């Protein structure tokens, strides 16, 4: 038997600045909605248990684990994924640029979650110490790098971002 019904909850949400309306099964995870329905595959699933941080996205300005949320909960919310940061390799966000410059990634699987977590952290704490950076990233597991170059990248990104005046232009 083939079930082609799309019954479910109707939601309206904004993803990376674009408004979407969708019918979603109540049990559909936000991560699967972003990946399968919107094709935003930069959000990765590393554990589906809310521990590893690979599926981190930003919902109404807060970093969250998209493997622990249902799409149906997102009605009226604004979601940002890694694809929202830059669509031009020559115009990367300072955090992305710093990860590139400081070898802050290897296999790249945890990278979108790391970058989004680091960006949110630097917005709250623009002049962090090394232990503060390590603490801020403690909910994101990287299996490749041993973290040191990630920490260096976040430090460098903080310096780049500090050189920019609040309206976003370089001082």
């Amino acid at each position, binding site marked *: 038997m083939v079930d082609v019904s799309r019954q479910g909850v109707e939601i309206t949400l904004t993803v990376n600045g674009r408004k979407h309306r969708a019918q979603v099964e109540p049990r559909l995870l936000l991560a699967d909605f972003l990946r399968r329905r919107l094709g935003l595959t930069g959000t990765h699933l590393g554990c589906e*248990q809310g521990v590893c941080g690979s599926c981190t996205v930003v919902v109404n300005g807060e970093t969250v684990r998209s493997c622990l949320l249902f799409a149906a909960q997102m009605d009226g919310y604004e979601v940002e994924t890694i694809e929202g940061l830059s669509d031009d390799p020559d115009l990367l966000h300072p955090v992305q640029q710093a990860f590139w410059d400081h070898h802050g990634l290897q296999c790249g*699987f945890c990278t979108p979650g790391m970058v989004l977590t680091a960006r949110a952290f630097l917005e709250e704490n623009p002049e962090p110490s090394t232990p503060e950076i390590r603490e801020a990233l403690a909910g994101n597991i990287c299996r490749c790098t041993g973290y040191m170059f990630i920490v260096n990248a976040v430090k460098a990104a903080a310096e780049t971002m500090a050189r920019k005046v609040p309206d976003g232009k370089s001082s």
Partner: protein
Amino acid sequence: MNHRKQPKLLGARVRRVEDPRFLMGKARYIEDIELPGVIDAAFVRSPFAHAEILSVDLSEALAAPGVIAALHGQDLLGRVKPTVCDAISDGWQSSEFPALAIDRVRYAGEAVAVIAADNRYVAEDGAALVDVDYRPLTPLASAEAALEPTAPLLHEGWKDNHFYRDRLAGGDPDHAFSIAHGILEFEVATHRHGGIPMEGRGCIASYDPIERVLTLWSATQIPHLIRSELAICLGLHENRVRVIAPDVGGGFGPKSHLNPEEVAVCLLAMDTRRPVRWIEDRREHMLACFHSREHYHKAKVAYAEDGRVLALSAEVTVDCGAYSVYPWTAALDPGMSLFIMPGPYRIRNFRCETSAVATNKCPYGAYRGVARSANCLTIERAMDAVADALGMDPVEVRLRNLIRSEEFPYTSVSGFVYDNASLIESLKQVCAEADYPGMRERQRIARGEGRLQGIGVVTFIEQTAPAVDEGAPINFRYDSAIVRLDPSGCATVQLGTHSHGQGHETTIAQIVADQLTIPMDRIRILYGDTQQTAQGIGTFASRTAVLAGGAAHNASGQVKDMLLERGAHLMEAAVEDVELVGGRVTVRGSGTRGLSLAGVARATYYHPELFPFGWSPLLEAAGTFDSGHGTYSNASQIVLVEVDPETGAVKILEYHIVEDCGRMINPTIVEGQIHGGVAQGIGGALYEELIYNDEGQLMTTSFMDYLIPGPTELPDFRVSHLETPSPTGPTGVKGVGEGGAVAPYAILAAAVQDAIRPIGNVFVNELPLTPERVLRFIDQAANGHG
């Protein structure tokens, strides 16, 4: 006028060219590939470690809405051959590993049936409706239980529960023990853990019944080896099997196997004529992605009064779980131990007995630094024990035993030929970098304040890009590259290996750029598609920079020769008189600008009339590189830790590394590999353990109870380099992917033991050093049971 010469890129800290797609969320991992009409598979897994399968009823699952197909083990009979991966050894017992268990399950988590459905949610619902009737059998949850005389035999026709037994001896150990100043005996255990990449396993199979071509996309390190075994299992011609490894989210060894699930998914795709996708979840990964590292060693060491180790005798037992896995066999770790146990030391009398025991646990596979971490632990614990017995400094005892630079090439007592290394130099350098005497002084002061600080020191040598000329079903001592220059003068390089974090799109391009003297942005590195590349082996065993790098060097060297020959002809010069400089073929010393590489390429492809009739119009070459006996990297490390006597927690205060991996292609990438390797080694030494209970049930199936080190657990690593160029290859490069992971077990065991010393003497011999174990060692020390 001389054209500007491009600086050498071998050795340059070039930023990785592959990074933007990862940073922007645009990489394509297995789960990101979307094929039209794809359906999802979910597996039914055994809840028992050991049981007979009485019946499997798929009818309810097949009747569920959205379920499209289902298979169980009996459906495979006559259609799919089980994997048989045998070591070539008198002490080997053969066994079969079916894609789905047929009449018996041998580990909790073994795949019993598979459901394909509209999507993964529905497939998992369907899997829950499969009714399997089991008759539980006695679970053999440890090597000890499996070797009891009354234990049931795990495989048909076996005499006992050994996959493999072997031995090796060299010199005259009995004599050495008889004349020794002292003899020490000890045991060590490194419990089960694994590579655990952040991306789990997964695959998509698609079958074209008209062309009779099966395509498997798989998160694998070894696409060619998968293709060969899939063709055998499914009875297909190998030229009609295509394996594609897309971006892979971490390998570390666990993704260097043929997974039984992949075979079942291929069969589903052939049956349903739909693409079938399987993406495991983390619980499946912990249960069924092959585990590693479960070694038990007994060692006996004879030493002289001056600290020289005269003889080593060892017994190695590896708990290899239920099945022998393709392509490594269950002899992987125990077989390797026979040869690598003596390590970097001048030990001339040696005896080792080794065995792979079959148990009712997840099968055992490859993990970064196969067998090396446990063997490094044993030989380094031996050095520390000798130092303690003689009241010597652990650095001094190593200096007296290490092979000296002038002794290379050195044939070890086990028959390995070490090409060259900088063992004593690396130890002296790491002592200088760490200010070892100063560190001892700081430790003394800390102890005076009641703080338990300890120091560990380790030196190791590591065979990289190894050859296995005897015993293994596949000898992986070479790899391949095709270099093709297009009419615009840009190069496309197709590698037989893969890259899943190691940065080969950058490092191999650096090698080719030097050969062809063109900028890196004119070079594209491709890999991971068996239909597109020459026969290759894959990426594991610290081999790719050496072997694929060597192959790319050789192939681009051939293309360079073609360019010189054609350029010379066009300029009416003798080929001996021309050279390739700055992307141009010029007459040596003529001061002329010569011909651009693109000009020669365009002439070759589009104006064959300019050349003698019969000259090939193709500027491409296939190259290989064969490492022979492999090439040997080495390193020394020093760690300073502090142990909390109340909680048993171990904090790493300083971690110093001096690494020698020959000529470095890209020091930044080398450092990244070392950091990552050490981090995984620290995980195995302090945190990570796959714990089975007596029933053979895995108790650690999530990241809540299997602890992977995070940024707050790991220190800043202080890395410096020595460069002893490899005499084995054309580039002087040695492998570095695994080295970092080798030493942390030994070094942290030593450091924790040293930290506890003010409480009392104890021999730290069991890892990981979880708080519970550390507190037990502290208790033993306090009670004088050391």
